[in-house]
């Protein structure tokens, strides 16, 4: 096989398909971050005093912290005073129907192929769309309301359901958990809040689309999902962002609380701007996602398809506190060109008979670096706990890197922990085999990669899985051929 493969070079060099900027006038906070910025954000959102105090406490903690250095990432110095921490579309319409939505916004959604109308009509998905920092459209709320389900923006939740927010915010990811969670806690602009009451099975997938839309505006979403005893919810998060030259910081926090016998499925498709072929621009994505299986027999399942961002630092994790609780992590992470990803999970087994399952599929192309980092911790009282981890890496070309960092910390002898890892290269012979059946190289790569990632993709809800498959193909377009 020739050393430099023109096929591989081509897939590794395709352009981001969702690069455009929509022109919605925004109201911004001044650049930089100090206590006044935090007060400005809190005032803008008409928050109660306790919320402001909580933010300020987080801000003071953040000031004393430093960004983590342990990841396998080369992160340029970030000037946190050179960032605008709040921006909102000027009008925040109270929406009765989609007719009232800013037509330009609708157009933005349409160009992304995620028209709310279509979503409402075809998929039955309730959408809480976050454009920049403020939620502008919420649908199906009434129907959910009949079941006692609360699904709204975080800002609204702070106003309308302060007791719930106050009880759970920071309960899974404390503000001072890490540098980025502290930052988020101080300046979070909006996000989603979801509450499923006892015994209720949420009848539809809850979905939020995020979009970063303002140059130099960090995005600091905060999502909180509370599933009460015996309830079930499947939550979808999906993102695309416009093309930008400047790097954009993104530091989200997601917290999930699952009570006894509750089940939460959280699925993500992440496609933020990854930077250009030369590694210029792109989103910096530093996310803290964690769920706690607080009650017995509860279950939290994370599924992620990560194709975007210049830098990804993300470890959706589970604290398995309740006996017999289950944590799952399914991940496909694609890196191309100069993208870097350090992603994985942490499974903390505290309760007896707790189980966790980790399936990670990394795909590296171009000159990218893709790392899996996972920690499985079995505490002394977590008898008969089980973990299964499978970490596979697929390489396209010979200039990319795949790395695996599994950590095991087992403090109970009855635990059963398994780890499997493989690394493979996408074969020229596989591509030729497809070619010989009339399938062009681009589609061949898409088929092969989707086959490789199938175990993860099948965890996604149907309509999301289709989108994710397309995304994998688009992300690797041009890297072979």
């Amino acid at each position: 096989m020739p050393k430099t493969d023109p096929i591989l070079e081509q897939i590794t060099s395709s352009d981001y398909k969702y690069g455009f900027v929509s022109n919605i006038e925004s109201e911004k906070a001044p650049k930089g971050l100090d206590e006044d910025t935090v007060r400005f954000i809190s005032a803008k959102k008409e928050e109660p005093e306790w919320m402001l105090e909580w933010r300020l406490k987080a801000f003071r903690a953040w000031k004393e912290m430093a960004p983590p250095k342990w990841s396998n990432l080369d992160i340029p110095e970030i000037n946190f005073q050179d960032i605008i921490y709040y921006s909102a579309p000027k009008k925040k319409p109270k929406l009765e129907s989609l007719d009232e939505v800013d037509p330009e916004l609708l157009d933005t959604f349409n160009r992304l192929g995620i028209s709310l109308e279509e979503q409402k009509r075809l998929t039955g998905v309730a959408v809480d769309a976050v454009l920049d920092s403020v939620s502008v459209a919420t649908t199906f709320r009434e129907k959910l309301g009949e079941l006692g389900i609360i699904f709204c923006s975080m800002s609204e939740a702070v106003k309308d359901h302060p007791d719930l927010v106050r009880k759970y915010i920071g309960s899974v990811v404390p503000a001072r958990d890490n540098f980025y969670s502290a930052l988020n806690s101080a300046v979070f602009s909006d996000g989603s809040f979801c509450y499923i009451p006892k015994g209720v099975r949420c009848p539809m997938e809850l979905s939020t689309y995020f979009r970063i839309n303002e140059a130099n505006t960090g995005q600091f979403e905060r999502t909180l999902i509370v599933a009460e005893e015996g309830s079930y919810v499947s939550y979808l998060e999906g993102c695309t962002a416009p093309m930008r030259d400047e790097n954009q910081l993104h530091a989200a926090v997601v917290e999930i609380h699952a009570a006894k016998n509750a089940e939460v499925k959280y699925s993500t498709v992440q496609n933020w701007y990854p930077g250009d072929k030369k590694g210029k621009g792109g989103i910096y994505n530093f996310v803290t996602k964690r769920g706690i299986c607080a009650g017995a027999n509860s279950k939290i399942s994370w599924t992620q398809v990560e194709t975007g961002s210049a830098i990804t630092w993300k470890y959706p994790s589970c604290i398995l506190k309740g006996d017999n609780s289950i944590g799952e992590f399914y991940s496909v992470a694609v890196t191309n060109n100069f993208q870097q990803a350090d992603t994985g999970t942490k499974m903390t087994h505290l309760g007896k008979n707790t189980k966790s399952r980790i399936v990670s599929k990394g795909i590296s192309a171009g000159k990218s670096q893709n790392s899996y980092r996972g920690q499985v911790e079995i505490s002394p009282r977590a008898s008969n706990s089980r973990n299964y981890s499978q970490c596979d890496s697929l390489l396209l070309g010979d200039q990319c890197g795949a790395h695996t960092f599994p950590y095991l910390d087992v403090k109970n002898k009855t635990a059963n922990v398994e780890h499997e890892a493989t690394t493979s290269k996408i074969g020229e012979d596989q591509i030729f085999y497809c070619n010989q059946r009339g399938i062009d190289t681009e589609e061949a790569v898409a088929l092969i990669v989707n086959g490789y990632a199938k175990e993860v993709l099948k965890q996604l809800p149907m309509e999301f899985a289709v989108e994710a498959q397309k995304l994998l193909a688009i992300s690797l377009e041009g890297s072979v051929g």
Partner: protein
Amino acid sequence: MIEINELKASVEGKEILRGISLDVKPGEVHAIMGPNGSGKSTLASVLAGREDYDVDGGSVHFLGNDLLDMAPEDRAREGIFLAFQYPVEIPGLSTTNFLKSAVNKVREHRGLPKLDAVKFLKLLKEKIKLVEIDQDLLSRSVNEGFSGGEKKRNEVFQMAMLDPKLAILDETDSGLDIDALKIVANGVNSLRSPERSFIIVTHYQRLLDFIQPDYVHVLYNGRIVKSGTKELALELEERGYDWIKEEQKETA
């Protein structure tokens, strides 16, 4: 159908095909035989367009078009099918989805509408009977965990699905027991038609007991050194390849 004229090819600078000429007409079955390393599989690969090989000279015309100018997928869409000696595994990709992509690409190229799910499934079920394999093969990943025989039968099944004009079988008989060989041969025979041609690359005469060739060519040292009818194959079976080698030495 296909006209090969003085075709020369090499791999990593090593000359393998040293000038092959072959003319296959519609409906004809040509067997290419020869000892190991004579260039049989290289010929099959070059015709299918595998990139590892460099074409150093000569020409190939397929239905009047310059074949060597076409990308591998275009050759396939134009109607060339290669049954691989070593079919490739593609984990996670079901045979059904693989064939759906392939069939629709080929149909699109031929100006036919895409098959909808129902029609496609019907076609699958009809064609899979040819090779007597279980239908659950369709939901399994392409060739993954298949036995040698299943892989080869899967190749013939794919051939039936793609409806090629020229099918090239590269040592499809290797590694098959007699029962599997018969099934594969029956599959191929049922696909014979006045419009479809075959080039059957094989080391042994055995397959030709079941698939009767119109012509037999012996490839040695990158050249066709002998051509004849199926009696030539029988002679090779009886005498081996050594006398061919001897003859060549004498000529040289």
